[in-house]
């Protein structure tokens, strides 16, 4: 498999808006050349959950946004062409209620011009991804990956995004990789609760040590499987922690909600230009 690996800095799913909202803060090149994972796209439009959808907690956010998205048709007609014109390397995050839906999404996206890769959302906290295909068991996520891989050209990456579940992460990563995932993205929101007890997912700096542990475990057990760290990346130090633990790239999510220029700053700091002085960002 010769799929190009994205990175080293990517925009995490669900935190880049439609792309347009990020552009003013994306730095001198705008979105050009930026590996951007879209919000999760489903076959049919989803309005998202009721408010409040996001609350702040120490060190992070608890969210139950509910995957609001315009559905595949509308995405293909509007958001995707815009992102392609803006020069982004578009990785479409997909989520489905059945295996057939995942396959369908992958098939139709494989024919859409400008799709650099797919990210398969196989780790949303259950209640947050209400109505999605049940992927709690590694063999479930693996069969989803296999179904997607069958429909999507092998020269383009399929990323499997797993929840940072320390007890099962290696197992999950192994089965997704064997099923054809190009890389494993470690770090979805961690199952959590809103202050009123409603189910949600925790993201932000609070989950960084958990996701980092998972990346390290995967890298130790499966050194040949590319991993992408996601969870609490907000500055050079937190990004380097993942890269040092063996990740080949990092995704920036919640930090963009705190400071929309985070990706621009990290891109500048981590760009491979030899003259680039790695400066500490915030």
């Amino acid at each position: 498999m010769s799929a190009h690996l994205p990175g080293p800095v990517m925009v995490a799913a669900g935190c880049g808006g439609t792309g347009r909202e990020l552009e003013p803060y994306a730095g001198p090149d705008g979105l050009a050349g930026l590996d951007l994972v879209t919000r999760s796209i489903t076959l049919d439009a989803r309005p998202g959950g009721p408010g409040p959808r996001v609350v702040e907690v120490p060190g992070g956010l608890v969210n139950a946004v509910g995957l609001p998205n315009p559905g595949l048709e509308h995405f293909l007609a509007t958001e995707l062409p815009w992102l392609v014109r803006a020069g982004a390397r578009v990785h479409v995050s997909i989520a489905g209620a059945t295996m057939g839906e995942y396959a369908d999404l992958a098939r139709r996206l494989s024919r859409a011009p400008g799709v650099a890769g797919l990210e398969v959302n196989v780790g949303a906290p259950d209640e947050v991804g209400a109505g999605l295909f049940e992927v709690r068991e590694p063999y479930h996520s693996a069969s989803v990956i296999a179904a997607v891989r069958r429909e999507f050209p092998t020269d383009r990456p399929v990323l499997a995004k797993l929840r940072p579940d320390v007890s099962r992460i290696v197992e999950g990563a192994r089965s997704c990789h064997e099923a054809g995932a190009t890389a494993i993205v470690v770090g979805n929101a961690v199952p959590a609760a809103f202050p009123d007890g409603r189910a949600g997912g925790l993201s932000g700096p609070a989950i960084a040590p958990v996701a980092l542990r998972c990346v390290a475990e995967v890298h130790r057990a499966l050194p040949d499987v590319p991993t992408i760290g996601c969870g609490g990346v907000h500055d050079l130090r937190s990004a380097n922690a993942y890269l040092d633990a063996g990740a080949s790239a990092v995704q920036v999510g919640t930090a963009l909600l705190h400071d929309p220029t985070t990706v621009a700053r990290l891109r500048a700091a981590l760009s491979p230009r030899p003259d680039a002085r790695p400066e500490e960002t915030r």
Partner: protein
Amino acid sequence: MADERGPVHSSLHPSVHVDGEVVATKRVGGYRHLTLTAPGVPERFRAGNFVAVTVAGHVARRALWVHRVRASSAFGPTLDVVVEARGSGTEWLAAQPVGARIAITGPLGRPFALPKDAVSCLLVGEGYAAAPLFPLAERLRERGCAVSLVVSARDEAHLLSALEARRSARSVTVLTADGSVGQRGTVADHVEDLVRRSDADVVYAAGPHSVLRSAAAAAERAGAWSQVAVETPTPCGTGLCHGCPLPVVGEDGVERVVRACAEGPVVRGDRIRWDALPDALGHAQ
């Protein structure tokens, strides 16, 4: 103004994320007024836009209404915001001294749509959220509109700048729930009468949802347009997180949920599905 009444088709204008500085701060009644420099923000501002600030030690950001913009001052262009300290984030903001640096993003959101002609406008605001009506009143007056302003609050300490408002408004009505100053009562009690007396073609409202709703309903009954500035918790303020759902009915008659920070905060009052928008949306501040 037919083609300007739509809430959701003013184009996204470029916003910036900059380091600003507190250049003045004063307590006014129950609020803290901050004057900030934010290179590029005052220049791009249109009435109804807001700004979001990054609060040290917090992940979510705080959205602030802009009360006044000065094109030039001893510090260059500045903007004034009004803060009501209601939690650790807003308390931090209210406590920032002169000279403090604050990361500011703005201007954000869709501003008020302005009428093309010199029509009669009623502006209804409550509490600190009435702030965007003040720059709006100035724009409207420049266009020759007859501006009537209503400022309301629970008591005198939470009334926003009624005196200053007299500069831009033809008439100013002050309402307090406890009757401590002005007329006693709420917007809901008086708005019907105020719309009729001002013979308003357009009603603009800013404040809690109950105020927006009664103003929009009174406008509709009087055959006037309404534009309301909705305040909803906005964890990012920039349209990235989809955390600020606003239930509306689109131009096509289809019910949908939009982002209050990106497709709002100003929308047409008759487009909001009020029943799907609880008045007590947790204003986590």
